């Protein structure tokens, strides 16, 4: 059956039987079907096919009932239909690229604002501590009560009281104030940092630290005659102050004193006492102390961490409640993976930061005082001669090898040039000789 014979195509006939043909075409199809035996046969086949397909009946399902899960969902909807709707609408809005960009930008601005306020709240105390105006009275004002006053560093306070303190040079004052500050903060820091380190998973724990967080670094270089004792002394000091050895390196050259370089980690509040004990191990050659305030860094990290956890929570909620394409589901899962990775990284950073604050770093160098020994004759003279002879032999052999290599690599091209230039040069030489010959003869005659 072709179009030339039938005004209605087979497909159209099928659509007509399915009730899917436009009215004008349906009228034409009905008219054609009345008198076309071939189309009637096709129509009968199609109808029969439908009947045959209906032979495949499925058994009845279990008695219809609404499952408990559905009831729970319905109850949840009943309780908060509007909230649920608004949450879902909000999330569906968030998924548009423009909204995502806007949300990202807003989050960044929020973090900046939070960081700014946190920083500005902490700034006065920190500035007061590091400015020349800081005195005992001011410190009390900023840190609340007497219990925070520096106990570990009484020797650093000048005997003349606040007046004498004020009359000290700026550098002295700064140094002492830094020491006082470090003494003040270490007690609270330890408690705070311990809490933070122990409770990494608590998402609500992102409060601003009540005191500046300072990662302290100190250095000391000692020289001693009793090197062996100093090493064991070092370990005992660490044990007494609950510290640990970060890194240890011992260097023992043949004709110089031994050197021990160690990175010690001691609790912040024990730093002063540990240093005082270390000084007893030998003569102090060099000493330094410093501190890096990481409060801002910590607050930023906290804010980012809280934000990340919130995002993860929302994404998980989306994954749980929304149905969509598998592609979308996979996208959400990938996003969750990414956010989870960032959170874990930030938690590790936070832990590391807390550790840096809780444990001060004490770079220690212990040098042995070296006494040179008088030797009758230099040791190993024979071996030095032998080594010199071997070196000479090696140099000769190496030279020969180099010449051989040069000839092998450059020889063929040199030979080629020699062949090319031989005849012209010989001709030129002969020419020169022939012109030079008569002149020489004349000179000789003269």
């Amino acid at each position, binding site marked *: 059956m072709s179009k030339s014979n039938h005004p209605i195509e087979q497909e159209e006939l099928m659509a007509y039987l399915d009730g899917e043909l436009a009215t004008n075409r349906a009228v034409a199809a009905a008219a054609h079907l009345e008198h076309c035996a071939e189309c009637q046969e096709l129509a009968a086949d199609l109808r029969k096919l439908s009947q045959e*397909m209906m032979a495949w009946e*499925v058994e009845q399902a279990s008695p219809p009932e609404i499952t408990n899960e559905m009831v729970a969902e319905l109850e949840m909807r009943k309780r908060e239909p509007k909230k649920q709707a608004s949450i879902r609408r909000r999330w569906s809005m968030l998924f548009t690229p423009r909204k995502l960009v806007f949300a990202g930008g807003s989050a960044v601005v929020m973090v900046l604002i939070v960081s700014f306020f946190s920083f500005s709240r902490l700034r006065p105390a920190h500035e007061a501590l590091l400015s020349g105006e800081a005195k005992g009275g001011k410190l009390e004002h900023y840190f609340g009560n007497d219990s925070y006053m520096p106990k570990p560093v009484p020797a650093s306070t000048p005997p003349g009281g606040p007046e004498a303190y004020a009359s000290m040079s700026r550098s002295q004052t700064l140094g002492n104030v830094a020491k006082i500050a470090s003494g003040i903060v270490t007690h609270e820091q330890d408690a705070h940092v311990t809490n933070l380190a122990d409770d990494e998973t608590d998402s609500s724990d992102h409060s601003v630290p009540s005191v500046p967080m300072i990662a302290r670094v100190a250095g000391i270089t000692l020289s001693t005659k009793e090197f062996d004792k100093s090493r064991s002394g070092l370990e005992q000091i660490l044990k007494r102050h609950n510290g640990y050895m970060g890194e240890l390196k011992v260097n023992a050259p043949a004709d110089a004193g031994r050197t021990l370089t160690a990175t010690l980690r001691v609790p912040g509040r024990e730093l002063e006492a540990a240093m005082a004990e270390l000084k007893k191990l030998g003569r102090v050659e060099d000493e330094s102390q410093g501190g890096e305030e990481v409060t801002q860094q910590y607050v930023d990290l906290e804010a980012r961490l809280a934000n990340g956890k919130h995002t993860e929570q929302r994404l998980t909620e989306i994954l749980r409640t929304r*149905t969509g394409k598998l592609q979308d589901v996979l996208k959400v899962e990938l996003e969750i993976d990414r956010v989870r990775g960032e959170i874990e990284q930030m938690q590790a950073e936070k832990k590391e930061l807390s550790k840096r604050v809780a444990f001060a770093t004490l770079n220690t160098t212990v040098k042995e005082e070296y006494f040179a020994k008088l030797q009758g004759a230099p040791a190993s003279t024979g071996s030095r001669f032998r080594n010199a002879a071997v070196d000479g032999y090696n140099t000769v052999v190496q030279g020969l090898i180099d010449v051989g290599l040069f000839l092998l690599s450059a020889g063929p091209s040199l030979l080629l040039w020699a062949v090319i230039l031989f005849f012209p040069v010989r001709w030129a030489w002969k020419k020169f000789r022939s012109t030079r010959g008569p002149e020489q003869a004349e000179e000789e005659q003269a």
Partner: protein
Amino acid sequence: MISDEALMLSFQRGSREAFEELFARYREPLYGFFRRRLASKDRAEDLAQETFLAVIRAAVRYEPRAMVKTYFYAIALKLLAAERRKFSGNEPQLDDEYEPAEDGPSEEALWVRQALEKLDANEREILMLREYEQLNYAEIAELLRLPVNTVRSRLFRSRMALKSFLEPKRNTQSRSRSTAEGEAKS
């Protein structure tokens, strides 16, 4: 009789009765949809239930411009696709290890199922949606995201192919019928 769309809007506003009515109307059709496409009766029931769960969860996103029937089957198709992906990465097939009904399938049903299995997967889906789910061309086109004309031509092709696959059965039946008549006469 209240339309499906009116019921859905009513359910969207929080009416549980409306959902129960929709559940009563669509439970059997949805079960049939999964049952004809999956081997396991239990999975078919589970997925029918999951379709309703998804409807409850996503009811807030339903917009009256979409037919409820199309909406339900769109969810069902997605669940079916996910189910098939879960158990095999192959081209969708009617399951070979079809778990028959307890009273056993009729011979005709078996023929039809086997003939359907031989069809191209895309064409088979269109044919099944048309014949068993009683969807019109536009609804199938919307569900499968195809032009209506493509749906029509594929449907025609699949019907012709199915007819050819069922031809031997017809011949067998007519032969056996004529033999039986001959025996009765003699």
